[in-house]
Every structure is written in structure tokens, then in C-alpha cells.
């Protein structure tokens, strides 16, 4: 194993992607896979782990870890995509149980890509199949689909508002379309250059995080005000919402931290600086933009949870949170009654929202948006009013193309539409989960975990807000809501995720 490692190390130092792959081929497939993505820095860590195929508790060689899941991947979602590989390997037919056997017994086949029954390990070894870049086309197509769906709904929900703002009816649609097209091109470039981008991200993760935080600090100081709060930083050629960048920064930061320290992040020695960094940066974003702060904290926390050996604290926290959610409303209502709060006009806006959420009938002005959203959802019924038939978008529900777009989806496409949207999200999250499981290294995996957490949190928060489950926080629906920075950043994350998927090697 030591030999193996060394080889890998050397090759990765040589570093050119193709060359690497070629050498790999001539060498041993798995060695090649391993080395390239890990680069110079991880080399050492893996040296002794290579042999411990099954030792879960202690650190295992990532190669081994990867090898097992790949078996399952093939049986599961990756099946179709690997079909060509399978076809290539078609000559080498194996017994039905081969896959299972391989999973259990072949710790040295890190990324054996086989269809069940299709390929026997021995045969594979003999044929020395070429390792191939895997690419998660499912995710890519899923993103395209949900974004297209979003475009349609942006047009439907914004055309009235656009005309009323004195713009052409497709003003918002066009802007979203342009940003979308740029993003998709970016995603494709990102995927192609995965071999460069992922190591770069890993190397400069701290720097990126630092820069995004500094940018958002700058935003606080010299940002452009819109609707009363300064969330935009004008870079001359483009205005960006820096809080969105911090989300990416946080993902990279936590991924890097976990990839360095492993489970040690849960220990006091590391946690005592990781958690403060996480929560302070989130907290100070929250001063201007509560929802982004919550999401950033949520991303960091989720990644902290995954990169942590501890279960019970988190379970405890989860139970507490659930209880909080269940009892918050009655509690607030009780407080309002008790304190006999009549007017909330002069309160802080977060407080207003909480009170309005708990007692929408008492503070209709603050709860207006939520109530109108509920009307929209409720009036949609199972089948909806039909595409483009929303009534609420005609003025009752201002800025329907932003945070409240889910309500318009419900109104126009009904419960069916809502299910379809949620299923699309579930699919994307599922793909991210899968990529995280089979990613080349821990950093990549953790990045995927972060991205997955980000998408999940935003979707959940957004739908929870519009259905009145939690107070209004102003979270956009990823891929669907209108908004330049948000779309760009979400798409950037998708680009990273797809790049990571591209760094997975399959054997074909």
C-alpha cells in the first residue's frame, strides 16, 4: 500500500490532468484516481490507511471508502450513466453476486464502476479498464429543468408588476434569462475545468472565505441601499449582494476545516475557534440581512454536524428546536395577550415579524404579505388556476417574483405543481448527497454537504415562510426566485458540485 501511495504522490506532483490519467492507465487505475485530486498535501495522511479496508472507526483510506459506495452507486442512481462503461466492459461477464463480493472484498478498487452482474473484479483487473471522468448529468439536467420552470414562473408572476413599473412585460424575465444563461455557461466551464478549480478552491478556501467576509463588511460601510437596508456592493461593473458570496465562503471554509481536522473539529481545541468564526460571521451578516445570517449559520452548523462524531448533542439540539418551533407560536400569542400589545409599529422589524406571524389578524399590515401568500396558496386548490391565471399577482401580492413565488406556483399550478417543485428539489438534494458520498476527497465531499445544506435550508425556510410555519424572513427559493446575485451564487455552487462530480472517476 505504501508503494501505491507513493506512486500516487509522485504523479499528482507532476499534476497535469491528462498526463496523470495516462500514467494511471498504464499503472493501476485506482492509484491514478486517488492521487490526482488529493494533490500534494493529503498524500501523507493516507499513507498508512490504505490497507484498512473495513476499519470504519479509525480513519480509513478514502480510496477504500470510495470503493464501497461505488458498488452501491452502480446499483442505484449511477446505473444509467455508467451504461457505456458497462457496455465497454461487456465482454467480461461475471456472476450475479460479483458486485456484492467486490464490495466486501476488494478494498483496493477505489472506484470500480460496474453494473451489478456486469463485471467481475478479476476481469476488471485483467483488462485494466481506463478510468473515466464521471459526470453527474442528472444533476445538470435537474438544474436546467428547475431553472426553466423558475423562468416560466418568474415571467408569469412578474409580467404585471413589470408593466406597472413602466418596464416591458418581460423585463424581469429577460434579466433572469440572461443571468441564467451566463450561469449555465459558467457551470459548464466549471465542470470542464474541474481539475483546476477544485484544487484551487481547496487551496484558497480560507482566503475566499476571508474575502467574502471582508466584502460584506465593506457592504455594511459603503454598500448601496435598497429598500432601506444596505445589502448591495457596487463593484463598478456589477452590483452584488455580498451575503450570497459569504454563503459560498462559509461552505468552503467549513469544508476545508473538516478536511484538515476530520472529527477533531468536534473537540474543544478546534471547536473553540471554528464555532466562533462561524457564528460571528453569520451574526454580523444577520445585522443587515437576518435571513442570510440564518442560512449561513445553518450551513456552517450542518457541516459541523456532519464533520462531527457526536450524535447526542445534536439530537438534543434537534429536539429542542422542534419543541421551539411547536411552542413558539402559542408562547408569542400568550405574550401578546399578556402584555396587551396593540401596536407594533415602533418595534424592531424582526420582532414585528414574529408578532405578525403569531397573530396575523392583529397586525394585518405586517402580516400582509404572508396572509396574501396564504390566500394565493389556498385559492390554488389541487390543480391550480392554470398557468398565468394567478389573480394575486395583480397587485395583491407585491414582488411576487421574489420570495413569494412559491405561492404563485401554488395558485397557478396547484398542489400538483407544488409537489412537482418539491420533488425537483428533492432530486437535486439527492444528487448532491450522492456526489458528496462518492467525491474524491473529504474536502469535495464536505463542499457538497455544504451546498446540499444551503439548498435544503433555503427551500425549507422559503416554503415554511410562505405557508406560515415560521415568521417571514425573506428567503428566496433557489433557482426559481428572481434575483441576480442569488441565481449567480446558487449556480456557482452547482458548478462546483458538478466539478466535484466530474472529478469522480469511473472505471470503464
Amino acid at each position, binding site marked *: 500500500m505504501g508503494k501505491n501511495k507513493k506512486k500516487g504522490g509522485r504523479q499528482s506532483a507532476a499534476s497535469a490532468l491528462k498526463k496523470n490519467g495516462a500514467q494511471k492507465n498504464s499503472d493501476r487505475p485506482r492509484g491514478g484516481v486517488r492521487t490526482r485530486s488529493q494533490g500534494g*498535501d*493529503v*498524500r*501523507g*495522511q493516507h499513507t*498508512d*490507511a490504505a490497507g484498512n479496508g473495513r476499519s470504519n472507526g*479509525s*480513519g*480509513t483510506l*478514502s480510496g477504500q*471508502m470510495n470503493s464501497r459506495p461505488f458498488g452501491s452507486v452502480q446499483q442505484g442512481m449511477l446505473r444509467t450513466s455508467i451504461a457505456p462503461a458497462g457496455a465497454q466492459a461487456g465482454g467480461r461477464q461475471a456472476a450475479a453476486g460479483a458486485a456484492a463480493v467486490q464490495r466486501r472484498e476488494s478494498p483496493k478498487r477505489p472506484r470500480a464502476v460496474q453494473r451489478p452482474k456486469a463485471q467481475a473484479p478479476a476481469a476488471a483487473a485483467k483488462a485494466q479498464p481506463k478510468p473515466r471522468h464521471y459526470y453527474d448529468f442528472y444533476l445538470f439536467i435537474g438544474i436546467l429543468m428547475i431553472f426553466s420552470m423558475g423562468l416560466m414562473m418568474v415571467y408569469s408572476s412578474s409580467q404585471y408588476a413589470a408593466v*406597472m413599473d413602466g418596464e416591458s412585460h418581460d423585463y424581469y424575465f429577460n434579466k433572469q434569462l440572461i443571468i441564467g444563461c451566463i450561469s449555465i455557461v459558467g457551470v459548464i466551464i466549471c465542470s470542464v475545468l474541474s481539475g483546476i478549480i477544485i484544487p484551487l478552491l481547496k487551496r484558497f478556501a480560507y482566503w475566499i472565505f476571508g474575502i467574502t467576509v471582508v466584502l460584506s463588511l465593506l457592504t455594511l460601510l459603503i454598500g448601496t441601499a435598497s*429598500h*432601506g437596508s444596505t445589502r448591495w456592493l457596487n463593484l463598478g461593473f456589477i452590483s452584488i449582494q455580498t451575503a450570497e458570496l459569504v454563503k459560498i465562503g462559509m461552505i468552503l471554509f467549513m469544508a476545508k476545516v473538516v478536511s*484538515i*481536522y*476530520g*472529527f*477533531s473539529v468536534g473537540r474543544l481545541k478546534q471547536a473553540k475557534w471554528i464555532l466562533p468564526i462561524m457564528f460571528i460571521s453569520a451574526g454580523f451578516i444577520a445585522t443587515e440581512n437576518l435571513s442570510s445570517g440564518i442560512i449561513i449559520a445553518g450551513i456552517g452548523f450542518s457541516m459541523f454536524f*456532519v464533520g462531527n462524531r457526536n450524535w447526542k448533542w445534536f439530537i438534543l439540539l*434537534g429536539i429542542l428546536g422542534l419543541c421551539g418551533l411547536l411552542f413558539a407560536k402559542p408562547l408569542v400569542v400568550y405574550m401578546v395577550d399578556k402584555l396587551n400589545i396593540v401596536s407594533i409599529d415602533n418595534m424592531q*422589524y424582526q420582532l*414585528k*415579524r414574529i408578532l405578525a406571524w403569531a397573530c396575523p389578524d392583529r397586525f394585518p399590515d*405586517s402580516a*400582509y404579505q404572508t396572509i396574501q401568500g*396564504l*390566500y*394565493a*396558496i*389556498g*385559492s390554488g*386548490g389541487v390543480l391550480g388556476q392554470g398557468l398565468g391565471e394567478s389573480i394575486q399577482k*395583480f*397587485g*395583491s401580492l*407585491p*414582488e411576487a417574483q421574489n420570495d413569494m413565488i412559491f405561492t404563485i406556483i*401554488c395558485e397557478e399550478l396547484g*398542489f400538483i405543481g*407544488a409537489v412537482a417543485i*418539491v420533488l425537483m428539489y*428533492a432530486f437535486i*438534494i*439527492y444528487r448532491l*448527497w450522492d456526489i458528496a458520498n462518492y*467525491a474524491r*476527497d*473529504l474536502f469535495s465531499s464536505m463542499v457538497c454537504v455544504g451546498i*446540499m*445544506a444551503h439548498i*435544503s435550508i433555503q*427551500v*425549507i425556510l422559503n*416554503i*415554511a415562510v410562505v*405557508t406560515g*410555519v415560521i415568521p*417571514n424572513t425573506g428567503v428566496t427559493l433557489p433557482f426559481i426566485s428572481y434575483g441576480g446575485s442569488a441565481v449567480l451564487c446558487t449556480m456557482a455552487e452547482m458548478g462546483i458540485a458538478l466539478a466535484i462530480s466530474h472529478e469522480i472517476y469511473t472505471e470503464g
Partner: protein
Amino acid sequence: MKASQNPKSGRRKPPVFNRIMKQKLAAVWVIVMLALAALLYRTYRIQDENNEEYSKIVLSQRQSEYSSSTILYKRGDIYDRNGNKLAQSERVYNLILDPRQMFEAEYTAEDGSKRRYVVEPTIDALCEYFGYDRGELGDMINDHSSSRYVIFQKSIDYDTKQGFLDYVDQKNAEFLKSEDAEVRKNQIKGVWFEDDYDRTYPYGSLACSVIGFSSADGTTGTGGVEQYYNDELTGTNGRRYGYLNDDANLERVIKPAQNGNTLVLTIDANIQSVVEKYLKEWQAGIGSLEAACIVMDPNTGEILAMADSDSFDLNNPRTTEGYTEQEIYDLGLQECVYDYRAKHEGAEISLEEVPEHYERSEIVNKGTMAAWNQKWRNFCVSDAYEPGSTQKIFTVAGALEEGIINENDFFLCEGNLQFSGSGHTWRINCINRNGHGPLDVTGGITNSCNVVMMDIALQEGEDIFLKYQHIFGFGGSTGVDLPAEGKGLGLDDPDIGKVDLATRSFGQNYTCTMIQMAAAYASIINGGSYYAPHVLDKIVDENGTVVREVEPTLVRETVSESTCDFIKNALFETVSTGTGGAAAVAGYHVGGKTGTAEKLPRSEENYVVSFCGFAPVEDPQLLCYVVIDQPDLVRQEQAHSSFASEIFSKIMAECLPMVGKYPEGVQASEYQAPSIALPETTESQSESESGTETEEDQSAASESGASGTETSESQETTSAQQTETAGEEETEISMEETRPPARDEYIQGDDGGSEDGGLPDMLSDLIGDEGIYQGPQGDASGEPEALSIDSSPGA
């Protein structure tokens, strides 16, 4: 790298994505999926439980205060030059019923029956307050029980609306206090008011052709400045809407409507009403097919008054008042003939065949449209006719300007002029068949001598003649800011023969519009500057800021000042010693030129008589052009140009003081009373009777005790005497009775029988039998939307 620098942790715990992490990630995934499922369930519950209720709310709040709503703009007002409001938009309210809301309000009474608690009380309240017929209202509500928007009454004023709202509040309060449990439930609901604007014209028919009228919604104007300046008069609707501020609270914002701009016209309501008074008087007396008059300020091209005898009430433009049913039917028949021709590629049907192809209702419909268009048509701008002798000054002016003739040249008039060519010989008569004898140029104008004009024109040649016709704006657009301007016919072809040239020199064989003639005269009177005639003085926005001030647009210089002076002098001579004696105004030096043109077909012996003049000669302030088309005379009687001259004289006598010119020997102070009396009368009239002012009242008011009017009356008698003694032109024309009836007045075939060989009458060739000059019959050929088309008649 840190890991490698930290070999201990690296060695002991190589951080890989291990099983625990995977398990945790799986846990995250499960939690996410559970959360999504829970949220979907929540969505489903919202829809399942509240679908119906929320759907109703959503529908109903479209009209509520929360949703965005439109704020109508106000169409701009129109004022005359003195600040009299000629057109205004007033805010009114439409009563809207929402029967569905009324019917939806029901509850189950104790006996299990459904009881509606809104319908009856609301109907009661409406009937009680507005005095509606109960049965009618009830039927209406029942018929539209599923509708949410029924306009029940329009144009309710603010006080009435507010009163009703108060009444409803009071009634609803009473219901609540009632002892009876059933009554206590009652409510008045489902009635609301919608903002609207009502367009009214306080002076009714005053200056109707100039102002035009607008559609009920205030978006489009028809005719006059309402049409021409529609873009200025209309504004942009505003909006009431909500948006979310940073706290996600709803802010209600009102984006106010951008109201239309106000037009200030150059029209002077006083002069206009004087003009209309005398046109009306004329029509009531001898009368004619059409009589029209333009009063202009010759120094700037501002139109002070413009009227024709086809007036209509702007507040109620769509009536066929003044037409009998038969007349409308006849108009309809004619319309159908044109319609048939248009639809069947030129196929002709006779009037008798029309009923075979068209329903009676359709004929009447077309007839009604035609009748409206006749009324709405602005004769002064749209209709072209042969001007007659008023043209003569331009013939002279052109020749003088080019140095072809000299002011002192003499011409010999022998009563006619003969032309030979293409196998025919034409003799064109002067008005005086016996000849005027030797005449100088001035004499040619004062005596309105055709022979002199023909001689001059022949000397000029057709090129120069046509050049000056174009310089004076004939055959082209004057640039007047009114829709559907006509251009006239017969001046486009540069290749005309001698006979044509000769006849044109005295204003036959081509057509022009009144506005062309008036603008051309104005250029002579002001010393050679041709200004585009205009009715707009300035545009003012709703805050009173002047958006645009119309400066006189100098289109071109026509002729030199010396030529103008000569012509002006000749015009003065014409009135003082020549054919225009009837136009004299006591106390003023007046200049002007008569015109008597024979209409097509010549055999009908119908005439257009006109007079175009100005006063005072020393400092011209007013130019007045009166045209009378086809005076109602039996054939044997001759049309007198004095008809027009007399109207001119009366109008001038009354209007000159209004522009600060008083008769000689009379102090200005003496005139103040009458000159102010008129606007005051009209003002108070319009206020007290809200726009239903009548012309009779006006004229009565202005005549009572006004010294200026007395003067003009006395003037009438003198001018009448003058007509008898000095009206050479007319007497000469009356001699025409002796000539064969089928002949042209001025042009005779050599042997009296050769007119079949083709009269050099371009016009009749050009227009065929539809007639160039569009009298009412000819008018019927126009499409219903003739007013909105800038077409030259007959073109």
C-alpha cells in the same frame, strides 16, 4: 497543508469522509426530506381547508383597498384666449353594483331556510336615496346575480355620492341597533363608486367645429382641437398600489395620474359668438346651403373665430336634429351607392336599386352617420370650392411682384376675351358684358374686371401664375392645426392651357379652402408674411406652467411690402368706391374683395358668394372672410356677393371694438360696456345653466342697450342702400339671365353650340359628377370617419 504540518492528527485521524459522516449526511438528508414532506402536507392542508374561502377573498380583494387600482387622468381643459372655458372635464362617479356580493351574503335562519340579508336592504336604500324604480333595479340585480361589476348609473356628482355613503353608514348603524334579530343582520353592501370624468362643453355649440368633442372615456377626440391635440389633452393614468418595504410591511403608494395638458386657443369666444350670431341670422333669413366665416388676426395668423352654419351641440354631438327622416334615408341611399361601389370594385347601382341590396336599417344607419359627419365637418378647413373674384388680388400681386405689369398700366376691357385653340374658340365674358372700358390695375380690382385679370394672367404666363398660387398657399396645406384639412384641386398640374389660365385668374376652375384664402389674404395684409394659421395659443400643464407657447410660424414671404401696399389700397378702394360697397363699416376704413363664383355644374347656376376683407386699413387688426354657399334663391334671382359683404360688415362692426379698434370719433370708454357685456353674459350663462347656453340669449343680451350694436345696425341700412346704388358687380351678373341656361357664366363656345366639344373646364373632368365642391350631397361620399382623415375633398 496544515494537515501535513500537523502530522499527529493526520496520522491518527486521517480525515476522510467516513462512515459516520455518511450516516450523518444521510440523517441530514432524511431530515430535509421529512421537512419537505411536512411542508407539502402543510401546503395541502392550506389548500384543502381554505380553498373556497381563500378563493373568494382573492376575488373580492381585487377591488379592495389593498390591491392596486388605477387613478384616471383628467383630460385637459380647453380655454379661449380670454380664459373662457370651452371644454372641461369634471370628476364624476359611476355607481357600481356587485350583485354577487349581495347574493352571497346569506345565512340559515332558525327555521332552516336560507335568508339573504343584503339584497333587500340594499335595494331599499338605493331606491330611497336615488329614487330608482324598484322593479327595474330588482330585475337588474337578479339578472346579474353572478356578476361583480355592473355599472348602474354614470356621472353622479361628488355630493350625491358622498350623501349616499353617509346614508348607507347611517342605515347600517340603524340595523345594528334594531331590536329585531332579523333586522339586526341586515346590511347594505355591494354598492360602490368608481371614479370617472365627464367631458362637458359649457358653451354648447359655440365653436363646435374648432373644438370638436371627445369620447366619453376621454381618450380620443373627434374633430377640431380635441382630435388634433389629442395627445396633449390626454394624460397617463396613475396607480394606487402597495409594495413591501424592507420590513416586509405593506406600504401603500399613490403614483398620481399625469393629467392632460390644458389648451388655450386663439379663438375669442366673443368674436366667435358674434360670428355665429350673424351666420345664424343669415341662415334664418334668406339662408343658404352653407355659410361660413373665418376671423383671423392677419398679423400673426391667429384664428379668432371660425364657424359654419352646420353647428351642433358638443355635449350631445350624436343627434340628427335638423334632418328629417326622409333626408336621412336619402343620405343613406347615397352612402349605400358609394359603399356598393367600394365593395364591388366599381360596380354601380342606382339609388332606386339600393333597397334591393341593403336593409332599411342599414340604410338609415349609414344615413345617420353621414348626417353626423355633415354636421361635424369643419367647412372652413375641409371643404374646397371655387373661390371666384377674391382670387384676383393674387393674380395682380404676382404680376406686380415679377415686374410684368406696372401699377399704372392700363388695360382695355371690352366685355370679353376670345381664345382660340384646338379647333375651338372660346369667349370668356367679363361681369360687365359691355366692357369696363380702360381700367388701370386698381380699377381692375375695384371693378372686379375679369378681362383685366385675364390680360394680366396671360402676360404672366402659366408658370409665374402657378408659382404665385403656390406661394400664396393654394393647392397646399396651410399648416393649420385642425384635422382633415383640404387642399383644393386644380393647381397641381403645371401644364395648363391659356383658357384655364384665364379662368383661374379670376378664381374659377380651381378650388381652395376657406383657410387657404384667409391665410393668403392675411399675408397680403400684413405686408407679405405668410403665417401658418393656427388656433392654438399655448399649452399649459395642470400646474399652470406653460409647456409650449405657439409663436406665429412664418411659412414664407409672399410678395414685397410695396406690392402689399398697392393691393391693400386697391382693396380699400374696392369697398369705398367699387364692388365691395356693402362691406363698408361706419367709422372705419375697410378694405376687401367680393367674390361670386359659379358652381359646378354651371348649368345649375348656383353660386358661392364671398367677401374677404380687413379693417382698419391703417392698422389691420381683423381679417374676416365670409363664404355663402348656394344662397337659397329661386333660379332667376342672382346671388349677390353683397350677402356676404353685409355679414362681413355686421361682424366687423361688432368685433372691431373687441380688439381695441373703435370707430372714428368714438371714445374707447364708450365701448367698454358692450365689449365686456358679451363675455359676461356667456360666462354667467354657462354657470347658471351649466353649459346649455343658447345663441338667442346671447345675441339678445349683446344687443340690448349696446351702443356699438346700434351703430352696426345703422350701418346695415347704409350698406343696404349702397348695395342698390353701387353694386355694379351684382347688377352685371343679373344680366346673365339672358344667356342660354346651359352655358358657363364666363365661358362661351364660339358659336354657342360647341360646348360639347369640351369646355376647358378641368374641374369637371377631374371630379366627374361627384362635384368638386363638397356640398352636403357630395359630402355623403365621405366615409363616416371622414373627419379624422386628412383628405382633400374629392381627391
